């Protein structure tokens, strides 16, 4: 049974490989604005929306802290809980900056997630199609695109 869904087809193979190798329980690939490109493991749209918004907010908050400290942008964050770890990382791609939020359990570790995340980024960059010319994002476009994304992520 697969719980993988992608808005953009080119993300499927790299994501599939990553979750298999790293033993991730949940993975969300998104833009810094929280628009979801692909997900693995979520079964409800509302969870994806919340996770995407929170993941994007975490990255944006830590970027701001880095700016205050006059440090270069943090590339990855890890929070280790008792039963789960949360790994959030950003990377540059031909589609601009992308973020990944990974939840892993006791069958995996931050070391494994980091190790296979490097391959994931490489695979995504290799699979990414040449971007179309970008247009400014309007509020109504954003909402429509978000709804389209969610519909596509949870279509039967």
């Amino acid at each position, binding site marked *: 049974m697969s719980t993988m869904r992608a808005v953009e087809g080119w993300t499927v193979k790299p994501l599939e490989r990553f979750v298999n190798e790293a033993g991730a329980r949940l993975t969300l690939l998104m833009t810094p604005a929280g628009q979801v490109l692909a997900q693995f493991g979520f*079964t409800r749209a509302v969870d994806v929306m919340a996770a995407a918004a929170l993941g994007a907010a975490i990255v944006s908050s830590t970027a701001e802290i880095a700016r205050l400290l006059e440090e270069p942008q943090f590339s990855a964050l890890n929070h280790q809980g008792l039963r789960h770890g949360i790994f959030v990382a950003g990377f540059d791609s031909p589609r601009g900056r992308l973020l990944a939020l990974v939840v892993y359990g006791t069958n995996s570790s931050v070391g494994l997630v980091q190790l296979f995340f490097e391959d994931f980024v490489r695979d995504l960059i290799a699979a990414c199609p040449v971007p179309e010319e970008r247009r400014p994002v309007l509020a109504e476009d954003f909402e429509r695109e978000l709804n389209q994304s969610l519909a596509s992520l949870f279509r039967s």
Partner: protein
Amino acid sequence: MSDDIRAMTSELARDPGSLVFIPLGEALRARGQIEAARKVIRAGLERNPDSTDAHDLHARLLVDVGDLEGAEREWSLVLSADARHLGAHKGLGFLCYRRGDVDGALDHLELALSVDPADPNVLQALQTVRGVVAEGGRSAPAVPARHGEMAADTGPFSGVEGADRAMLLVDPRGRVLGGGLRNPAGIEVAETVAAQLAGVSQEAERTVRVLELGEWSSIVAEAADGNMFLCQALPDTILLLVRDRSVPPARMQVIAEKAAEQARAWIAGQTP
């Protein structure tokens, strides 16, 4: 006694009403100290009769000693208090599957999945049950009613010393093909260990692939109360040998190689 167990025992002695008896029971069960775990849980339940997690652990301990009816009563009790209890749905799904009730197993496992969609055990169990349904059967293959009965069939290793209590042949999905395994307390642990071995094999394959070390041939673990030797009898089929510490790993390798040869012949004989 490990530090964790010691610390939890002290905490429980200080505060007998504490819920620490649940992780203590889990830790004792994980170490194979089933009777000790049962004592802790029974005493804990007297003070905390409403703890669903304690009843869930009690049910698993009852399965360990072969009291499936008792386990079913405990899990049903849990569901009457918490209809979305993950452990109870997993346990009842397991019991339904064991007695051949595939529909019942599917119901409980799907409810378990709705509670935790990422639980790998539920996903694997559902895959197995759905596999049975896809093969046309609405009733599961015959499964021994008690853990201990698996040991009687030593098929691939008949005649090999320790075949019924210290040697296992396991398929890639973590199911026992033959042999038997008992822990030092004499409790049958074949199925539990077999389930773990599937993960070990995948782990070893991934390790050698990523590090470019060729094919893995064996894994040795020397532990406080015994040694383990794992090898691949056939591609994707794992042979596990357990011996006490007096048997050195090099000698275990020789025994394992002979047993693997016998297992290969046995598997070839089973193929239609």
